[in-house]
């Protein structure tokens, strides 16, 4: 992880749909540690249970979220694409990933250090509120989608 982030990365973050209407100086504070990464098809981004030390803005490609017990291969329950954000485990104790994430297409992301981001959110409460209010609809949508999936599993 670079100590300072390049202009190019900061620029891409600012233009990402998730951050596009947030005050740029606060975004800079949040992404004080960030880097661009590429993943080949099949490469894992995160493993369930491991510390959630970063979150990701997806620039290109597709990421499959897999959950399950240790008695099966993982089941993909959702896919995350360009323009979306991956990861909220970094905001909720115990800050450990709750799923596996695997690139299902060649994928490019910006990985943002979670500790630095959490600090920025705590240090600027108004920004923190704004950020969480952007994140909440994303999580709510996913919850609703999961309910619809559940109904289908039960054959209703």
């Amino acid at each position: 992880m670079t100590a300072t982030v390049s202009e190019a990365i900061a620029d891409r973050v600012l233009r990402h749909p998730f951050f596009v209407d947030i005050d740029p100086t606060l975004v800079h504070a949040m992404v004080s540690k960030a880097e661009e990464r590429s993943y080949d098809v099949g490469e894992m981004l995160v493993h369930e249970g491991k510390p959630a030390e970063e979150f990701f803005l997806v620039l290109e490609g597709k990421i499959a979220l897999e959950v399950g017990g240790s008695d099966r291969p993982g089941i993909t329950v959702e896919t995350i694409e360009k323009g979306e954000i991956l990861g909220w485990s970094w905001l909720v104790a115990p800050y450990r990933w709750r799923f596996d994430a695997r690139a299902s297409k060649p994928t490019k992301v910006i990985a943002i250090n979670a500790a630095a981001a959490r600090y920025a959110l705590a240090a600027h409460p108004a920004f923190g509120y704004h950020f969480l209010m952007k994140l909440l609809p994303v999580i709510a949508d996913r919850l609703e989608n999961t309910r619809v999936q559940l109904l289908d599993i039960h054959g209703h």
Partner: protein
Amino acid sequence: MATDALRSQGHSHGTLGVTAHPYAPRPFVVRARTQETPDTVTLRLAPQLPGDRLSFKGGQFNMVYVFGVGESAISISGDTAHPEELVHTVRAVGKITNALAALTPGAVVGIRGPYGQGWPLDSARGRDVVVVAGGLGLPPLRPTLYEIFRHRESFGRVEVIYGARTPKDLVFAEEARTWLQRSDIRLQITVDAAERDWNGDVGVVTVRIPDARFDPANTTAFVCGPEIMMKFTAQALVQRGVPAEAIWLSMERNMKCALGFCGHCQYGPSFVCRDGPCLPYKTLAPLLAVKEV
């Protein structure tokens, strides 16, 4: 006569067949059959060889054998105080369990066992007890529930949470209704999804944990059900402060010998048949996070 033939072949049936060949099943007769749910049946068995009885600990299992078909590992779901009656609750999912579920009174099955480490009820004495069962996870817990009822004064608060996919899938439904009437335990029943004629709780069992009444630091938990259900339940209990070493899960894996020789049931370093099936979450947690262990 069957007994003489067996004796001459080196079988001893008096004390769980301790000197008997470890791979040879003993005959048990089906005395009664109850349909629990569309695909689940309870068989009440009695030993056929004179003097044979099966003493067991709640959480243990037998290898149940159908002549000409094969063996399947099935938890014992009866009462430890009545070893003269062996009870097994079977879900018909494969060749052997379908054959078992089709048996009628008078049929004879083979039994090898009991095997495995059961629920460590002794370690729960003087503590609050939380019992969480998902679907077919209730039968392996029932013998231990009976023991808790019998020695109720030895435990603190007792919370039982039982969940199934739909109301139709609840096993021991009649009996569970009598447990709802008890004042010495608190039972919550929930289903994943239901139609309008169900006015009970809907939601996964983990939803019941935040409101359950127990002192986390002084609680022992027994959890049994599909692996994913046990995983999330254990996490919810840990979230409430129950120590990982006081949470016990009943693991399940393919078994052939149940003796620790065939290698089939290994889960990490554990042989589920011998070191389990009841294992502490503290040991299981790192493996539960990995796929295809």
